[in-house]
């Protein structure tokens, strides 16, 4: 039991001094990515605008990284205690393209957790078998907890409803690639902003740039959580909460859509009441959306974007998924050197 006294409130959700004993095995840092060397990746707020811009520049020239094989001889543990397709496979692809190897743990059934081993012991084991750990878990705070235990760098692959920093990185990178940058854009974030970690991390990631305005669009039960709004208020990001995307559609340069996180809604009755409450269709977009509007989605999609949008110029979600490998390559190269 410990109480600390003092006046200053922490400027950050995760104060670095919570991370005890984190040391890293690293080689020569990748030029331009020195700031990433040996770092844990817990929240998108761990990174400054300058950090992210360096990362994006490295992602632009990722082919150069491939030829250098900076992860040769390195092993990255991919511990996914929750289902994953894109995140796990894109990390795996990124590691292999950089010349490294992976240890993959999928679900709790296949490992000693099913025999009653706690997470701390599992993390210690992964730490001793690998050079970095990418972890996904349904409990919020697991990545930070793992980072406190492990000596190797820990990358958050999604912790419950809270953070998904590498998704936010690739989302911002996609906007930069397709729109030339984030500054000055009007961005709509539509969907489950309460339980969706991708949405929360994307919104927090926007605070590192200067969008003209951010519309937070959701049915009332799925509004942004209070603690996230508190962070937005601190940064002075201009935002407005609305319920229907169609009202703000003509203003938008980017529309980020997410599915309802059925698995995280405590009351199944609530899910039944709100499912299908929003849907982006080509019919709604025609004549009302800006010609340059880009629609992003972290995927998987359920029914929130109709299939007829897929072949329209608005579609950017498949491009976004593809760019994820580049961003994760740059990130891992920066962390492991």
């Amino acid at each position, binding site marked *: *039991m410990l109480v600390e006294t*003092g006046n200053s*409130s*922490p400027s950050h*959700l995760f104060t670095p001094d919570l991370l005890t004993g984190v040391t890293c095995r690293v080689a020569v840092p990748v030029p331009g990515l020195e700031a990433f060397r040996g770092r844990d990746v817990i929240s998108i707020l761990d990174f400054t605008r300058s950090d992210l811009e360096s990362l994006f520049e490295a992602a632009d020239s990722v082919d150069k990284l491939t030829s250098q094989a900076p992860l040769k001889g390195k092993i990255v543990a991919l511990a996914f205690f929750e289902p994953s397709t894109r995140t796990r496979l894109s990390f795996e692809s990124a590691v292999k393209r950089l010349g490294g190897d992976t240890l993959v743990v999928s679900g709790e059934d296949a490992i000693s957790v099913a025999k009653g081993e706690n997470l*701390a012991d599992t993390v210690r084991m992964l730490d001793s078998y690998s050079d970095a750990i990418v972890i996904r878990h349904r*409990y919020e*705070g697991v990545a*930070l*907890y793992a980072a406190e235990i492990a000596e190797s760098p820990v990358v958050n692959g999604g912790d419950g409803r809270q953070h998904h920093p590498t998704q936010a990185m690739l989302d911002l990178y996609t906007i930069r690639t397709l729109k030339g940058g984030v500054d000055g854009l009007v961005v709509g974030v539509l969907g489950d902003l309460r339980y969706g970690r991708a949405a929360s991390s994307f919104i927090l990631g926007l605070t590192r740039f200067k969008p003209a305005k951010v519309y937070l669009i959701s049915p009332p039960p799925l509004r942004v959580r209070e603690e996230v709004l508190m962070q937005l208020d601190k940064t002075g990001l201009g935002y407005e909460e609305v319920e229907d995307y169609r009202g703000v559609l003509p203003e938008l340069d980017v529309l980020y859509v997410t599915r309802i996180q059925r698995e995280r809604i405590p009351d199944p009755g609530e899910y039944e009441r709100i499912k299908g409450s929003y849907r982006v269709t080509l019919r709604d977009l025609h004549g009302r959306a800006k010609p340059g509007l880009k629609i992003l989605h972290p995927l998987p999609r359920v029914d929130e974007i109709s299939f007829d949008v897929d072949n329209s110029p608005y579609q950017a979600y498949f491009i976004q998924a593809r760019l994820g490998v580049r961003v994760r390559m740059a990130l891992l190269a920066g962390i492991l050197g």
Partner: protein
Amino acid sequence: MDAGEGLLVRRIREGTVIDHVEPGKSFVILKVLGFLDEPGERRISVVVNAESRKMGRKDIVKIEGYFIGEEEEGIVAVVSPRATVNIVRSGRVVEKRRVRPPRRVIGIISCPNPTCISRKEREPVEPVMLLVDEEGPVYRCGYCGTLVRASDVPRLIRV
């Protein structure tokens, strides 16, 4: 202290008086400070629901022969943010101060979020609360970010 309070509990000569405690919180404070489990030689008096001009009703805790420290004051502030601490020596109040919420509280306040890692069974992890607004006070779970207000604290205190 309010007039007439002496009728309920006599003045102390040496020790600490925690005044302006939110009604009903005095025993929580004593429990969290460990005085209920290990009172030692200390004589402790508690007044519950005394009249107060400032607060309407309040609790008062008097601990004879013991002077509480800064860390313990932080605990008092977490449980009852508007409390005051009076240090009494030779029958006179020599110091009177309002408690201040600590910047970081570890192991005392549970996170209300059932899927926070700090709530997971069989994990060697203590809940960490970070102060985000001194006026509330409002804390934020260091692991999952969930906000905790002063009014939530009594039900979340780990005793």
